[in-house]
């Protein structure tokens, strides 16, 4: 009986997470378009619904009802699998992301996370790497030159930043002494981990921009060079899943992980603990701010060349991540 309850609880929670994430991703597109519009001194979407508020719904309907073309020469299995491979792992990271402390309503204890694994951070890393296969498969399966170059570029970038990303996460883990994201947040009740881990945070910013394919690291879909990169041959919702997964869900989820690792998760901002704001809202405020930071970067900077990114990853980011481990080790020894 207890097992059944757990299964039902987890299923319901997963469904809520997935549906909310879908809706959130849809409205993140609106957020991005409005933000980009204002950065570029234009209004952005304005005509569907009040102040363009229904634009994501219209976009979703349009993408879903598009004709689903599959070119003759593609590898059909991989071609279909690629768009799922890009999308599913991105959303699966959500399983280990805690959004707040457990709380009680009507005598029922609700945990605002699907599961609290003791290897959560490793799982998140693994799923993050898996979603890259979607891009590489898409490039390969399209049997076309531009997508292939796009996919290979992504592979080259991946090898660079994944190593640095792994090492950058070591610092907070060392300080918290745990792989569980919830315990890492709890360990930050005194001070946020950003203080000794500032180098790691820089590396993480770089890695998130690279993983989600945002400027300055959007080499795999650089439209001026590669038309659309790896999505050139895709249409309809198969196409729609890529930007949805990469630009919105992945950016959002990775921002959440960065907030958990460095900014104390759902803990209130310093000196603002007295405000009657629930911890889940604090968490979303922080994630939102970080997300907006990525948008800001995306709509301001030019793009690197692919060899410059790998150079940056190996020559700058990897040493920075390693230096961070040393700094944190010294911090633990001398300060605590």
């Amino acid at each position, binding site marked *: 009986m207890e097992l059944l309850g757990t299964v039902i609880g987890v299923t319901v929670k997963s469904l809520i997470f997935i549906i909310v994430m879908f809706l959130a991703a849809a409205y993140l597109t609106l957020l991005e378009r409005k933000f980009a519009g204002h950065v*570029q001194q234009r209004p952005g979407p304005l005509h569907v619904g009040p102040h363009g508020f229904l634009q994501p719904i219209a976009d979703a309907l349009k993408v879903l009802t598009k004709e689903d073309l599959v070119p003759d020469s593609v590898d059909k299995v991989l071609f279909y699998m690629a768009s799922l491979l890009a999308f599913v792992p991105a959303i699966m990271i959500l399983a280990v992301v805690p959004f707040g402390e457990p709380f009680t309503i009507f005598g029922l204890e609700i945990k605002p996370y699907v599961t609290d694994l003791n290897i959560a951070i490793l799982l998140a890393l693994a799923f993050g790497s898996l979603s890259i296969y979607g891009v590489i498969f898409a490039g390969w399966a399209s049997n076309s030159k531009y997508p292939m*170059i796009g996919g290979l570029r992504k592979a080259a970038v991946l090898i660079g930043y994944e190593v640095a990303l792994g090492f950058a996460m070591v610092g907070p883990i060392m300080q918290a002494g745990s792989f569980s994201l919830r315990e890492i947040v709890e360990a930050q009740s005194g001070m946020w981990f950003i203080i000794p881990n500032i180098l790691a945070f820089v590396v993480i910013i770089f890695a998130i921009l690279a993983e989600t394919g945002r400027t300055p690291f959007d080499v795999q879909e650089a439209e001026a*060079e590669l038309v659309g990169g790896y999505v050139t041959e895709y249409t309809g919702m198969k196409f729609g899943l890529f930007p949805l997964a990469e630009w919105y869900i992945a950016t959002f989820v990775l921002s959440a992980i960065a907030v958990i690792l460095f900014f104390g998760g759902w803990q209130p901002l310093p000196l603002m603990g007295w405000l009657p704001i629930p911890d889940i809202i604090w968490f979303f405020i922080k994630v939102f701010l970080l997300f907006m930071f990525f948008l800001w970067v995306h709509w301001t*900077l*030019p793009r690197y060349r*692919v060899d410059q990114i790998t150079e940056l990853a190996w020559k700058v980011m990897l040493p920075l991540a390693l230096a961070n481990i040393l700094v944190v080790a010294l911090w633990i020894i001398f300060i605590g």
Partner: protein
Amino acid sequence: MHLWADLEELKLLEGKFSDIQIEKTENFTSITVKKEDLLNALGFLKEDLGYKMFIDLTAVDYYPQEPRFLCVYILFSPDKKKRIAVKCWAENDSVPSVISLWKGAKWAEREVYDLFGIKFEGHNNLVRMFLWEGYKYHPLRKDFPKEGIQEVYLPSLNLRPEEIPAHNYSPYHTYVPTMEELEKTQKSRMEKRSQIVLNWGPLHPGTHGTIWFLFDMEGETIKNCEIILGQLHRGIEKLAEDLTYTQIIPYTDRMDYISALCSQVAYVNTVEKLLGVEPPEKAKWIRTMMCELQRINSHLLWLGTYALDLGALTIFLYAFREREKIMDIIEGIAGIRLNSTYIRIGGLSKDLPEGALDVIKHFLQDFPEKLDEYETILTKNRIWLRRNLNIGIVNKEQVYQYGLTGVVARSAGVPYDIRMLQPTDAYDKVDFDIPLGRVGDCYDRYLIRMEEMRQSLRIIEQCVEKIEKLKDDKHISTENPYVLPTLDEVFNSIESMVKDFNLRIYGEQAPEGEIYMSGENPRGELGFYIVSKGDGKPYRIKIRSGAFYNLQIFPELIKGRTVADAVALLGSLDPVVGETDR
């Protein structure tokens, strides 16, 4: 200002080569050499007399004379600042190739071969320039009809309801290329040696128009590159042979459509020199002002698309915000935004409207701040620097070899600016500087274009000041017999009406002779070589496109670099396909 070589200098040639004819007129100086002496004479001019910069090569068809083709080489001496033209009759329809002297002659010779059918002995890959392999004709020959030879049966031309007589076309069409022929064209341009051949274009967001690049790639490194032009080839030179001088003005708009006014001014100045027309003072100042407005407009479009190519999406809209204001100013003055056929032989089509100068003054106040804004985002941005520094370095030798002009030449430190060398209109009366580069890379070209916008502002400021004083002057000198009268005059006097009729029907009867003159377009030297036989129509017009010669260096600069650099390099060379293909 006279830009042609002195007679004393040419006398040196007479001693060295037998059978040389020297022709010196006010507008043109040429020497005619025999076919056997051509290479030696050009070599002597290049090595000993310093005429080392290749400007243009063209041909004129004197059908049915024998030999029928006359090749014309135009050279420039950067030290003496003089031009010289060398002519050579193509006996047996062939002349020796000069690619051993100037690499820039490679495309020019292919173009002449394509359009006239003249063979160049010793050319390493003499294939067609604009048209496709398998096309049987050479369209610029005088015996090729202007409407083309209609030989392909295309029934779709007549698949319309029969009751509409206006749509009853002839089902025959001029020859169109087939897929096999295009494939053959591609094979003839470049053979595959490395891993993959990437067709970059003709329809590609990075190519700024319809240029077809072939990249032979090893991974992402480009080992070999070839360019196929001609997707936008409309045969403007052929069309112009059937039009009066005034009717050609709209065609000049449609070559470099981004800087239409500059092209018009370059063309009209050439024709005015040929006809001996002097425009009124006010028209000259307005032309200069409009040219510089157009230059800022063109550079802004360049900045926006260049930044877009390198991934900075926002600059594009920032640049277009300012460009839109200039567009509105041009629209207010000329009545048309893009292809404003505003300049006329002998002046302008309309006077400045009321308040135009106020708007321009307001723009002058507003714009420097915006320029600083662009520079804040880009100039010292580390990513921008890494994408631009040391990419596509052009040196002085290449400038002379390829006949590079405009910003590309100036980035290599060659002070080649037609506005200074041969000032037309009011350029000799305004004060401005020419920025020069040190390295010759993409970043230098970026900085030069930004600085040129500032210099253009300076010129416009001086023009506005002057035009305000000339408020009540005429904008067109209609008293000249070659200049079309204004509408007002046509309606009110019978003499003007007769003159208008004559000029429109028979054209401006230009005196016999030839002329080469050029203007400084935002994309390099836009030159017009006109041969007149005393008719109302030009016998031959050759348009020397700056973008065509600038693009020619692209394959050499891109070798060993990646596709990402190709975008940056192409953007900084800034070709406009309407002008390269004509």
